[in-house]
């Protein structure tokens, strides 16, 4: 995910910017499986986000906890904690996959998909 900011896949040319805090961001990118401790904070973060907020799950761990389904510390998948709009599989997904996922999401939101 972080590689998208680097010179080769620079996503700022598409207008996507990394906002330091959730309050002035519209898209919440979630990676990694959510264990009990981080689920509470994730919920609080989601409530703080300005409401037309789009959630994108990146990577197998956040889609369906991939490898950690039977872990005693990751009880529920991500989309039972917060509503998720787009899923980008891959472990880890290529930066191009993240960008093309975002493009598909934009088209879907605009209704032109």
């Amino acid at each position, binding site marked *: *995910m*972080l*590689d998208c*900011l*680097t*010179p*080769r896949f620079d996503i700022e040319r598409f207008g996507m910017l*990394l906002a*330091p*805090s959730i309050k002035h961001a519209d898209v919440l*990118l979630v990676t*990694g*499986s959510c*264990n009990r*401790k*981080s689920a509470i*904070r*994730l919920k609080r*973060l989601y409530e703080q986000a300005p409401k037309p907020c789009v959630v994108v799950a990146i990577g197998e*761990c956040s889609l369906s906890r991939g*490898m*950690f389904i*039977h*872990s*005693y*510390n*990751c009880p529920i998948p991500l989309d039972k904690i917060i509503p998720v709009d787009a899923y980008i599989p891959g*472990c*880890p997904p*290529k930066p191009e996959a993240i960008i093309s996922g975002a493009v598909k999401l934009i088209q879907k939101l605009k209704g032109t998909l």
Partner: protein
Amino acid sequence: MAKSIIPIGPYHPLQEEPEFFTLTVDGETVVDIDVSIGYNHRGIEKLSEMKTFDQSTFVIERICGICSTSHPFAYTRAVEDIIPVEVPDRAKYIRTIIGEGERIHSHLLWLGLAGHFLGYNTVYMWVWKLREEILDAMEILSGNRNNYAMFKPGGVRRDINSEDIPPALRKIESIVPTLNKLKKAIIDDPVLHARLKGIGILTKEEALDYCALGPTSRASGVAKDVRKDAPYGAYDQVQWDMIVTENGDVFDKVVVRVLEMFESVKIMKQCLENLPPGEIDLNIKNIPPGEGIGAHEAPRGETFHYVRSDGTNRPARHKVRAPTFMNLPTFKATVIGETISDATIILASIDPCYCCTERMSVMNCRGKKIYSGEDLVRLSQDKTKLIQKKMGLK
């Protein structure tokens, strides 16, 4: 002086391993620091008891996003230690290549982020552009940018076919000239000297007492490296030397990591050029009951795996110890007594899965002033600008 507590909140888009540092601050200097981890605890040891020996290499690989091949390296060595079996030569060379490639891209990643903390955003962008070359080389060799899925108890899963070697070699050699420029730019940059020298010193005795590992301990003069002391893989058939510096401050940790990258490029080139022929896997069928210990020199230190098998095809107990587990408590010795603006770079200097220190927020009980994580990084960047002004560079 009323002490104020600085909770360093756990969430930030840049962070890999969410950790929660609380610094208690007396005015400017840090008086005490405490960390609560466990935000990423996924119970890997219990999980690997549910999987077979072969499947649990994939669980182990996903412990840490960047050093994703050092854990399987140590795990497969531990399983081979139970049977006592020796891996064929070609598999040793392939393992060393993947291990070293991963060390380069992990150090580059850390260098970029350390630059970002100090306000050198150009270093951040330059170093990560360089890192893309290495990730392409790893994709050629192993099929994926990061989680390489190359390791198997008893050998390697995929072979490196010969026509892939020249393009990978070209990509690896293409980073050396830029790396040289970076080394010169970092080592003789007066601002970095003034900024990083003398802060966050980990003396040799403390490094031994905390049992610190890897570059963190090698920067304070503790000459310990698993690849030299207990040579395994192809590390004894290849010439390279260990980097040790003396005074253990943040500047030395930067120097150790930069010079180690040159060694890794040397190792990878020698391994890729004389890759011995032969088969790559022992096809271990059954693992006798017993215990095995495996260790590997990860980019951040020595990963240690203890595997106990009771004769079935599932490990009975699997103890994993990442290097940061031993390096992280050393912040008690290094951060206390420093100013807040230095706290970010010191905590990042032990490379705790790159930038957990990004999550900082300062709460001053009296004035209710709230610094967020970004402000603390900005504080550390202002300090660099202050030093530049003092040096008359601006």
